[in-house]
Structure formats: C-alpha cells, structure tokens
C-alpha cells in the first residue's frame, strides 16, 4: 500500500513538473512575441514563429501521463481532481503557446509598416497576462486558492485595457486610413493578450476546483471567495 502511494505521488509530481515546464515555455514565448513587437526585432519574432514544437510535444506527453494515471491508478477525491485539472490546464497552456504564435504573426506584419504610435498599453497587457499565467501556475503548485482568486480578479484589468486600446486606435484609423492595416494588427494583438488572460483565469478556476472542490466557473468576479 505504502509503496503504491509513493509511486502514485511520484507520477503526480512528474506530471506537475511537465506542466510547469510547459507554463514556463508558454510565458517565455508570450514575452518574446510582445518584446519583438515593441522593439521591431524580426529575428526574435521569427524565433517565436518557429519554436512551437517543444510545447506541442509536452502537450501530448502530459495528456498521455494523465491518461495512464487515470487508467492504472484509478485515483479518487483530491487525486482525481488533480488529474482532471491537469488535463484542462494542459489544453489552456497549449492554447497560450498558439496565441504567442498569433501575436508573433501580427507583430511581423506590423513591423513591415511605420509605427502607428508609441506602444504603452500593449506591453502593459503583456506584463499582466504573463503575471496572471505565472501566478496561476504558482497557485497550482502551492495549492493556493487565494493566489488563484487574485488571478481571477486581474482579468478585468486586461479587459479594460483591450477596450481602451481599441478606442484609441479607432481615432488613429479615422484620421489616417494608411494606419488601418497596422492598427488592426495591434487590435488583434490586444485581443490575443486578453485571451491569454482568459486561459490563465481558466487555470486559476481549475486550481480552486482541485483544492477545494468548488466550481467557480461562470460566476461574477469575487463570488468565488469563500
């Protein structure tokens, strides 16, 4: 019995390590894509465009590990919730990796035009999205529902910035039609960053479910606090 538990715990820790590795890669790719956009560094942008493979490999590996743990150990209660959460977090992290590629694609197009304006809000969105992702994963490792709740609360800031960016760029586009193409790319990028925040939110919700068995999805902000 003892031995079986240690084995299962070991497997669970291995799974957690892989998810963290994946989270680190995803966060790094978001950071590089935004940095490439701001500094108009095409080489950096191209590295993001080409480098999705490691996350994709981890995506498959994590799925296989979860599948195996479910089949062979038939976990219950908190162990079951941890594996179900891992399956879902895995999907979210893979999507964040894809969104980093989408940001890089738009950044590459944007770099071929003269800059529309000095970028202030988009780098801020990037910082918030990365911090949310980092906090959500920290909350996962530390089983910290308070930190997870903090991630849920941060999501509103991203939504507000996205709306602000849209309004501001609209005025540029109305004044000067030549800015339409690059401005649309910036709007797309703000949308991708907002989506990354949504994935971090999903992860935070999964952490709360894993730790406390409370389902806080589709609730008004602040309601999840218990």
């Amino acid at each position: 019995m003892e031995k079986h538990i240690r084995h299962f715990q070991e497997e669970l820790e291995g799974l957690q390590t892989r998810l963290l590795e994946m989270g680190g890669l995803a966060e790094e790719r978001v950071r590089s894509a935004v940095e490439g956009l701001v500094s108009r560094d095409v080489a950096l942008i191209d590295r993001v465009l080409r480098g999705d493979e490691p996350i994709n490999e981890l995506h498959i590996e994590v799925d296989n590990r979860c599948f195996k743990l479910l089949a062979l150990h038939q976990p219950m209660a908190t162990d079951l919730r941890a594996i179900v959460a891992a399956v879902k977090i895995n999907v979210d992290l893979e999507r964040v990796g894809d969104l980093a590629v989408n940001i890089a694609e738009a950044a590459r197009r944007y770099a071929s035009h003269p800059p529309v304006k000095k970028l202030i809000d988009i780098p801020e969105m990037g910082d918030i999205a990365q911090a949310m992702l980092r906090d959500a994963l920290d909350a996962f490792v530390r089983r910290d529902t308070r930190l997870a709740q903090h991630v849920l609360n941060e999501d509103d800031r991203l939504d507000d910035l996205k709306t602000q960016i849209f309004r501001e760029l609209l005025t540029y586009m109305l004044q000067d039609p030549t800015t339409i193409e690059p401005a649309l790319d910036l709007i797309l990028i703000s949308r991708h960053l907002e989506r990354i925040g949504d994935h971090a939110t999903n992860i935070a919700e999964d952490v709360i479910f894993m730790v406390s068995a409370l389902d806080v999805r589709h609730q008004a902000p602040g309601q999840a606090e218990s």
Partner: protein
Amino acid sequence: MATPPAPAVKLPALKPASRTGDHDPGQVKIAVDGLSFFYGEKRALHDISIRIHPNLVTAFIGPSGCGKSTFLRTLNRMNDIVPGARVEGKVRIDGDDIYADAVDPVALRRRVGMVFQKSNPFPKSIFENVAYGLRINGMARDRAELTGRVEESLRQAALWDEVKDRLHESALAMSGGQQQRLCIARALAVRPDILLMDEPASALDPIATQRIEELVYDLKKSYTIVIVTHNMQQAARVSDYTAFFWLGKLVEYDRTDKMFTAPAEKLTEDYVTGRFG
C-alpha cells in the same frame, strides 16, 4: 458498561447531515438512530445514525475491523446469535422497530435477506437450494407454484439460462460465480424487500464480479440493497450512496459520486485516496 478505549486518532467534528443522509428528502427504508453494538465489554459500534433509501444501493466501506459488517448484521439481527452481543439504539424498517420484543427474527430475515462473502449453497440440487426457503416457510401451495417461484428467482439472479437444463444436478458442481448467484436466487425466493450483501464478490474473478455488479444494478429496481465491500472501485461503480466507517463510527455518508470526488471529511479523503494509516 466499560468505557470504550479512546481512538488512536482524534475524530474530527462531524456535521450531522453528512452522517445521516438527512440532506436527502427522499423516502426512508431503514432508519437507524443512536445504534451502538457490544461484543461483551467491547464496543464495536458507536452511536450510528443513518437513513437508508429504498430502491437504491448503499455501500458500506472502511478498513478491516471498522464495524461495517457488524453494522450490516444488525440490520437483520444476525448478531443475535453471537454470545454476549448487545444492541443499543433503534433500527426501524418501514417504521417498525426490528428489535421490539414482538418481532420474530426468522420472519425479519425473510424480509431482510442476506448474501455472504463465501457462497454457501446446500449440498443439494440447484432446484432444491432455491426451493428450500419456500418449503420450510410453506410459501408455495403446490408443485406448480414452487417450480414457478424457483424459476422466477433464478431469472432474477440472472442464472436461469445457464442452469435451466440441469436444475437437478448438484449445486456444488457450479462455478464460484454461479454458486454466488444461486445464493442470491435463494435469498430472493422468499421475496424479501431488502437484500444485505457482505462482500458478495470478493472471492470471484473479474468477470464473475462484473456479473454480480450488473445483477445488483438490476435488482435495485425491486429491492433495497446494502452492500459491504473492501473494494472501493466496486462501491463507486455499484452504489448510489456510500457510508464510510472507521473505528466503529460512521464518519461520512453521502451520495457516492460526492464521496469519491469531493468528500467532506478529511478521514474519508485519506481513505479513498489510499493515504490511510
């Protein structure tokens, strides 16, 4: 009365609703209140209160010696025959106190049938095993009725098709899984409304186990079933409600899905995730 030995680990404060199943507004088949059980000076069950619902399967789980089998046996007074055994508290079935002076334990056990861990067919034919209870209770008026009831019971136990051509062969020639289903048929023949099962599949291979589990699922349409099992996956698969016992106490009782995905008590959590001890 001697004071029971203090448990090695302090029991957490329990919410009454999580122990009694009172949160379910449905009907109650068996109502147990403040039940304690003693083997001489030794207290094996402590103040158990639970509501068991009709036409559902309720599983009792817990480590060896936790009192789950003892508790099962208080529900049809099988412990009466244990020397020095004593019961406190109330067990009511459909509102009737089964420990009242006027209750005949034999009549009670007709109403509350039981199947044991080890199949125990009589060294008689398949037919006679099932007919036995009907005969001694005078429950069939003639041969035709007797034959009809035997067939009905064997069908209910999902055994008829396998044995209909060899009803008069010895029951001891059957496989272990068939013998256990024969014991179920024998219990069903006297038309009980509650079926108690004490580890009914623990001596069977996975295929025979699956047949018993499917049978349990079918039988709950007509019977209230209480099953004791060591196998948590089995409890999770077959039961609607699960009660977790520990050191003679009922720690938690709730819907089975809740017990195995998000139990309320830390002790239950530790037990179902295998972190016990």
